[in-house]
């Protein structure tokens, strides 16, 4: 197992370096001069002279050759220095420390709401296969899959404001600081996120359940005279859950990087918001660092899943 872990961790390192290279190159291919974006201001009303522009470019190191810029970034990362935002001069580590916990809270709440919706309706749908209930739940799942998250978010905001004359409180509170205010702010976006994700989970759960309830051991349980509730809960669901849990891990990773639009709509100051703002003004250090972090989270989750599989299934680690 030890050799397998070492082997797997070593494949992680080139993947991470590859990611840095891809991000760096993409950021230089994307048209848009960060110096011009910053000088013209967020609302485009900034004024500047050509002299200001040339000075800023040189201060930002944009005149250096690309390999120099890349090596400088790598050097900073090696020293755990994430750099400084071009837009407001703040250290990116500080911005990350502010934003990441917010996104994690939203992603976890979104994940919980997706599980709470997707797993039960997946089970019920399978048990009541081809019934009206099944059709309704499948329709809901397809609706969730088809509706973009931003659209669901906008509908939620519209209903809350127009029909209930309600709007989430201004300012953000962490769950551990002011749980009530935090739930008021995060509850609805979490539901909107969950609604969009639960379709995938529901379909996976339903498919697994349909497969499992055809298995011999389920038939045996039934033939023993066990009540259907016990057969389903104790024998079918537990076995059907394994692939769903794997999927859930991937979905959680996706949610961590996929809260961007919801954060904009519901005024949640998370990583997604920071990333969108940074893209808008071409704040390259923030964009490349945040994308790198999201990519590393995915890589890490994959590594974790692989190691878990290796631990569970000796054939994988031996091969």
């Amino acid at each position, binding site marked *: 197992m030890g050799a397998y872990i070492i082997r797997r961790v070593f494949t992680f390192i080139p993947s991470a370096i590859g990611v840095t290279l891809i991000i760096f190159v993409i950021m230089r291919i994307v*048209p*848009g001069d960060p110096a*011009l*974006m910053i000088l*013209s*201001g*967020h*609302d*485009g*009303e*900034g*004024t*500047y*002279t*050509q*002299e*200001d*522009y040339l*000075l800023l470019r040189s*201060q930002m190191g944009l005149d250096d050759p690309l390999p120099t810029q890349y090596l400088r970034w790598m050097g900073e990362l090696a020293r755990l220095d994430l750099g400084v935002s071009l837009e*407001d*001069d703040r250290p990116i580590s500080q*911005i990350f420390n502010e934003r990441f916990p917010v996104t994690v809270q939203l992603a976890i*709440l979104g994940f*919980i*709401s997706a599980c*709470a919706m997707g*797993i*039960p309706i997946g089970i019920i749908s399978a048990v009541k296969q081809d019934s009206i209930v099944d059709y309704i739940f499948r329709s809901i799942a397809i609706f969730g899959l088809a509706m973009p998250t931003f659209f669901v978010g*906008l509908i939620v*905001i*519209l209903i809350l*404001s127009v029909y*209930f*004359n*309600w*709007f*989430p*409180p*201004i*300012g*953000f509170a962490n769950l551990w600081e002011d749980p*009530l205010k935090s*739930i008021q702010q995060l*509850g*609805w976006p*979490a*539901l909107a996120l969950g609604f969009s994700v639960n379709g995938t989970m529901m379909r996976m759960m339903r498919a697994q359940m349909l497969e499992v309830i055809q298995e011999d051991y389920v038939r045996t349980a039934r033939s023993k005279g066990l009540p259907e509730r016990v057969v389903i*809960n104790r024998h079918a*669901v*537990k076995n059907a859950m394994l692939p769903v849990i794997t999927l859930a891990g991937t979905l959680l990773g996706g949610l961590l990087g996929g809260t961007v639009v919801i954060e*904009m*709509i*519901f*005024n949640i*100051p998370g990583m997604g*918001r*920071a990333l*969108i*703002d940074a893209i808008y003004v071409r704040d390259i250090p923030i964009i490349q660092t945040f994308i790198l972090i999201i990519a590393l989270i995915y890589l890490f989750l994959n590594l974790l899943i692989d190691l878990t599989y290796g631990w569970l299934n000796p054939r994988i680690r031996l091969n």
Partner: protein
Amino acid sequence: MGFKRIIAVLSASVLSTALVACASSDAAEAPAQPAAAAPAAAAAQAAQAPSAPEQPAAPAAAAAAAAPVAQSAPVAPTPQKIELRVGTVEQSTKTAEYGGTLVQMDTNDPAYKDHHKGRTITNLIVFSNIHGNLLHTDTQTRSEIVGDIATDWEVSSDGLKYTFDIREGLVTHQGHDFGASDVAYNVNRLLTQPNDKPLPRGGCLRAAADGATATGQSVEITLPSPVSSFIQCISMAYMLFQPQGILETVDADGSRDMTTEEVDGVGPFVMDKWEVDSMLSLKKNANYYKEGKPYLDEYQLAVLPDASTRIAAFRTGRVDMVPPFTTPKKPEVDAMKEALGDKVTFQQILAPGWRGFIANQNVAPLDDVRVRQAINIGLDRYEFNQLNFDGIGFLSAPYLGMFDWVYSFDEYFTWPGYRSVVSGQVEEDLATAQSLMKEAGYGPDNPLVTTVNCGTNVNDECAVLKPQLAEFYIDVEIIRKDRGARLTDANNMDFELWHESKGIEYGDPDAYHSLLYLPTSGINYTDWENADFSAGYDAQKGLLDLTERGAALRDMADILYNDPVWIGVLRPSLNHGWWSYVNGYVPPNFHQATYKYDHVWLDGKN
């Protein structure tokens, strides 16, 4: 844990999330209906301009001077004339009440805590309430320039020395004395830009002044040559003064940005809390130098980047005020008015500056002045106004009509091309444009083929442009790019026609010069330069007499009209709204103006 329990826990968590979110004790209610404020007063003319000199005899002199432009008698404007809607609201006659929190919203965070580094109007709005101006446009009359932290000022007879007397006994929020040396330090900082860190809003100062020295309670700013717009420059809303001590500290540290705790000033509100990209809160400054003010206990800024969310926040009363630059579109305003009636007030604000199409005079076919003149004269600006600004836009002339002492709107409205803004397409103008194009060698069978570089914003003027140009033999391809790509193209001069919109920082034509027309401007994308214009600029900038200066500027406007590179169309009018329980607030007469809320109070907001 059994499966049933897992399901129960998960379901309960979702239900409780939904219930708690709905069961807010403080949020469900909309603001109580306050006594309705009187409706907006009748529109008044922008009062910013000093008394107008004698009007020029020939309004379309510029067109007449242009050799290639055919002469034609101006067509009489129809009654559809667009009025200036800039004005004031009738104020409550009640005695101002103390207390309460005013919540305003904006699309983005102020970003920098060192206001000198700020570039955005959000930054201006927030820091206007933390720092003092030396002078500013009065927040009640919105016309005259009055002292803020300066009590008096005088100009030497040669116009080279400005002396400002600073208020005695000013103390910052953190208890430090604030006086003339602080003011001088600010001026010199804006002039020198320590550590080569750009201080963007000090441009007019750098173009005009040499330096500042403090003597006792006075500050003396010296100029190498007289600059008639200097008072307008030094009193512009962005010109806010921060304590010397903290500026020295950050400048010694590479001119880094300040921390929230370091933000200090002498203004009506004290920085309390800044949650980046979410909200910030300012608390009342109990030691504010204006006795009895501010009335509010707190000012909050909510950062709401999404337009639908902003409308929802305002509609539910979670937010009290929509600042002008976050302007909702007119249909949205109409919908809110319909839903909320006289509980909300909306007023339009002039957004002076320039908006239209830049023609790259360095490349064929736009290097032919006749082609550029044809575009300038042939455009139907009325159609732009109706389609893009719901009929509330303002003509974007070389100098916007807020400077009546150069050219008034009425005068501009008689010029070929510009007169269409009043009455729609003027057939004579279209014929002139066609004739100019024919002279340049184009016609219905061999149209000029060119491109226009456009953004992806909602107000799609390029879509309006294309069929209009086709009417006078120009086949334009619309190239859409995002802002970053467009700015790069502009900087590389890689375009033929270019859509752009820019606002001026302060109320003087010199703000136009530095923003657009001078070779030093970053937005003079095509490096346009004209010897007569430059000579005119040098001549007018020191003229203290408005009549003389107005005449010089008229000549310069004529040059810009006859050698059109900045083909102005319309500037938007900005919708600025607030709940009617917000009292004492007089909207500014242009969008980059002073936003100090020391005199604002709330009547009946829950």
